[in-house]
């Protein structure tokens, strides 16, 4: 058992061991934390990961390039579209393929819809961790209406398999865009004010979230943390502005930041980002050009790109999400390495940052920092 300041073991006779294990309603997924506590406070912790390991990187080397588009969306379960986008971006970067404009606009609309539904689900999950179950029911219901629209566009509620190398699978009609605009109006005018009254003006919720799970700027930069967790400390870093992809360099949007880096600030940031995403989708639908939606790359089972490598990344709902792809000119990928967003926090953050919190705040810590176990288990 490790001590933070050196390698000595601590006196175990006064401490109790607890398995905050995989079978618990308070963990965000199938993941465990083993910790020692004394009195009411956690003293030392370590992660218990690997329950969701399926060996994706080995499976991807055994299948042709096109067959992997049906496989990669299962790596992150809450937000599957970013995986398809990064895989397609990596393939197009190595092969130097140019995607038509209309396809880039449609890809950005799909990614922003995925971001809105992931943020709503995350706010609901945070409320479930402190016991406010009404907000969880409302959040899951609001997310369901967005999944209905996904089903109309792509054919599936959760796993879409819509974005593929060269563009998207098929076009979207104008009537679907009109339904999307109506849904966004309903979200902005009816549902978000109700969430505001229930969650954000609630004195009990404010007391539970203020000054819990604090992560200051120095620790965040040292660990390699990105996303809303880093923006809550005051820095304005977002992959959509640092290395633009899709159609993001043709729309106007702001990046909300915060001052204190506790759970309360992160919740407010997610709510502000929902409003920014609604604004982005409206601009994209207004300015979308006409044209083809994909490039013809020949026989799908014989896709081939020259030798090369690429590290590509996108901004998911939780931060930077990247793939490192290596190709050796054959029909199957040579190596694909997945870098999930919550790898530094889920593995090293438990050891370095959890000691010092009280036991009842451990689920709040796990939910508000955005730990998603299938990303680092792969």
């Amino acid at each position: 058992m490790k001590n933070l300041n050196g390698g000595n073991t601590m006196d175990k006779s006064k401490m109790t061991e607890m398995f905050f294990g995989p079978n618990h309603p308070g963990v965000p997924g199938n993941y465990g934390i083993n910790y020692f506590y004394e009195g009411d406070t956690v003293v030392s912790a370590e992660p218990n990961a690997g329950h969701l390991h399926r060996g994706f990187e080995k499976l991807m080397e055994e299948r042709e390039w096109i067959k992997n588009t049906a496989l990669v969306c299962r790596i992150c379960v809450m937000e599957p579209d970013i995986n398809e986008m990064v895989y397609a971006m990596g393939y197009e970067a190595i092969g130097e393929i140019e995607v038509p404009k209309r396809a880039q606009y449609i890809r950005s609309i799909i990614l922003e819809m995925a971001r809105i539904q992931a943020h709503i689900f995350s706010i609901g999950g945070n409320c479930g961790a402190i016991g406010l179950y009404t907000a969880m029911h409302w959040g899951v219901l609001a997310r369901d209406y967005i999944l209905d629209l996904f089903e109309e566009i792509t054919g599936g509620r959760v796993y879409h398999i819509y974005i593929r190398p060269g563009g998207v699978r098929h076009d979207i009609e104008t009537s679907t865009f009109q339904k999307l605009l109506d849904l966004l109006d309903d979200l902005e005018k009816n549902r978000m004010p109700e969430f505001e009254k229930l969650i954000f003006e609630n004195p009990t919720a404010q007391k539970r979230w203020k000054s819990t799970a604090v992560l200051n700027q120095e620790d965040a930069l040292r660990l390699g943390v990105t996303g809303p967790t880093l923006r809550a400390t005051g820095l304005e870093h977002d992959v959509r502005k640092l290395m633009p992809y899709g159609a993001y360099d043709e729309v106007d949007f702001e990046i909300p930041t915060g001052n204190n880096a506790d759970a309360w600030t992160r919740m407010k940031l997610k709510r502000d980002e929902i409003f920014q995403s609604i604004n982005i989708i409206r601009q994209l639908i207004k300015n979308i050009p006409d044209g083809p939606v994909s490039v013809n790359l020949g026989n799908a089972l014989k896709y081939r790109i020259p030798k090369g490598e690429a590290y590509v990344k996108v901004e998911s709902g939780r931060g930077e999400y990247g793939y490192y792809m290596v190709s050796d000119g054959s029909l199957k990928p040579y190596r694909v390495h997945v870098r999930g967003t919550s790898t530094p926090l889920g593995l090293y953050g438990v050891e370095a940052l959890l000691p010092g919190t009280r036991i009842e705040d451990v689920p709040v810590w796990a939910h508000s920092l955005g730990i998603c176990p299938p990303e680092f288990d792969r």
Partner: protein
Amino acid sequence: MKTENEVIKLIKEKLNPLEVNKLRAQNLAVKLENEELVSSLNYLKSKGYSHLATISCVDWIEDNEFELVYHLFSYEDKINISVKTRIDRKKSKFVTIKNLWAVAQYYERDIHDFFGVEFEGNDDMEELILENWNDTPPMRKDFKTRDYVNEKFEWREYHGQK
């Protein structure tokens, strides 16, 4: 804020690279020898490349080598740099960089689990993601996953069909 060509010039002057090239916009790749790696990473970290995204490992079985790739990023220059080095496949050993970035101990533990590479200075190499694994490390190219599955698990029989 520096452009890609200025960064390439800086790397060629101050470090001792085998090869530097620009892959595409905002992406560079640098190849180094084993002994130069830790000092080069230290130098790049002091010049603003302080975000370590991840450490990857690629198995080049025909050359008999492993390749370790360190991905760095700078928020001021907005450039990705992939720093690479090659080690021998039979006696796969390398030094740790956990004194520069403390997060790296978990990335190295992950590579040890899947490829069998040992890192000197990082003595916590317990199994992280696999459990009770006694075979060859699974991400190596000589581990055939379909033979392993056919031997260990049985398939369901469907009546009258194959």
